[in-house]
């Protein structure tokens, strides 16, 4: 073999090999109920028959008991910011104006927080314990997708007590 560099040629360091694969994802029975709820502007969670915790979005099982969650529970449109971060860098594929707030939101009646976007408030005004509510897209734009929730915004209520949500941190 001849050393590529000794013949004055640059070695091949990188070759491009694009991969394109299409997938059909299966939402699952529980998530399907949740997604249908979103298209009606509602949060539908599920309760574990064993430990009675309410999960939203549901995945079909109670993650600690490993049993199917069976009872459907409609949750409030309001919740509490348990914790959050301030995003100061434009993130790939993200078009929101920086800085913006990514928060863990615990819906009233739920036992697990999920990640949501906080708007209609200055980033430096957001607090742990802040009360927020979902802002839905107009009814004609509702669909079976998380994009049906445009963002969350402050309700103006007094902040929740740290003790009331600290076990969800």
């Amino acid at each position: 073999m001849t050393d590529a560099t000794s013949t004055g040629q640059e070695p091949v360091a990188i070759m491009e090999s694009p991969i394109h694969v299409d997938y059909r994802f299966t939402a699952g029975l529980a998530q399907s109920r949740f997604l249908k709820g979103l298209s009606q502007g509602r949060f539908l969670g599920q309760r574990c028959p064993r430990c009675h915790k309410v999960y939203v979005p549901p995945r079909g099982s109670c993650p600690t008991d490993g049993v199917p969650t069976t009872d459907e529970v409609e949750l409030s449109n309001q919740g509490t910011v348990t914790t959050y971060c301030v995003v100061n860098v434009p993130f790939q594929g993200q078009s929101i104006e920086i800085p913006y707030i990514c928060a863990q939101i615990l819906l009233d009646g739920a036992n697990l927080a999920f990640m949501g976007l906080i708007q209609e408030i200055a980033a430096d005004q957001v607090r742990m314990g802040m009360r927020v509510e979902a802002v839905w897209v107009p009814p004609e734009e509702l669909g079976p997708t998380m994009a049906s929730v445009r963002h969350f915004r402050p309700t103006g209520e007094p902040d929740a007590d740290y003790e009331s949500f600290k076990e969800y941190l």
Partner: protein
Amino acid sequence: MSAAPTGRPVAVVSFAQSPQVRREDHRNEVEMLMPVVEEVFSRIGVTKADMGFVCSGSSDYLVGAPFSFVSALDAVGVWPPMRESHVEMDGAWALYEAWTMLRAGDVDTALVYSFGRSSPGQLAKILALQLDPYYLAPLWPPPTALAALQARAVIDAGRATEEDFAEVAARSRRQALANPHAQLSGDRAPGELMKDDYVVSPLRRHALPPITDGAAAVVLAAGERATELCDRPAWITGIDHRIETHALGARDLTSSPSTTLAARGAGLGERAAVDVAELHAPYAHQELILRDALGLGAEVSVNPSGGALAANALMVAGLIRIGEAAQRIMDGSAARALAHATSGPCLQQNLVCALAAETPSGGR
């Protein structure tokens, strides 16, 4: 560290599988797995709290999501925290990992499970990603084409004919009639199968495996714990696995030396003396290669379940072979059995598990 006897015997004490289907359209992987895990426990009256270890096998590329095994774990509910691990391989190798844990004496019981959805993505393209990323994968050869190269080599070497492939397929699908979990079964004579069109010459439709979604689970137990949990445990008398080069051109595709080596490592002689052999041979001609590699005589019942020609959920079909073989020992219909699992194109990597009703007398 705790002192436990080395190499104490380990057995399969329970097995369960989901219906093996063309497409799981409604259930996600957690929902597919939960009933299987429930069944594998309830058969022997245990719960997750009785498990010392949990080990699973699956593939992110099949599911189309990174870390797909993470959410699948919610089908078990590992709380309080459990000893747990995962291989990006067929569940048969997860069982191997669990077997080493049990042998080492760290734990007495293990849940092994795997799930595989071959339906969501473009399977032929996905499997091409298993090939050499620089020279072969960019050509996107479909797995059927690679299998056909191997089948052609078998024919050219005078080892078998297309009629032999049809015999394998006819027998597999006929035996699958008795398997309630099978996806493909039927009673068509080999002569009739020979009228099928070629998919990739020399492989006709019948010589190919179906595309399958499915899940399976096994419980392993060591020493006395096995006899407590099961009247007739399927003792693992040996288990070993070997890999060959990825370069197809550098291999003799008509033989499977890695299977032979694994069989030796599992304590099987040149002619595996077993009642039943469950072989993970996705393509009909591969059963013939494996029979040779294992030295299986005509008296051995091969793939009574129908084998991978009846259902071939990737990452699961190998573990099912072990479960099916073990089941025949547990139900008393066999005294000695052999299970085989494969991975990679053209039988590149092979695992052999020897099982017996009789307790192994120490050693490996």
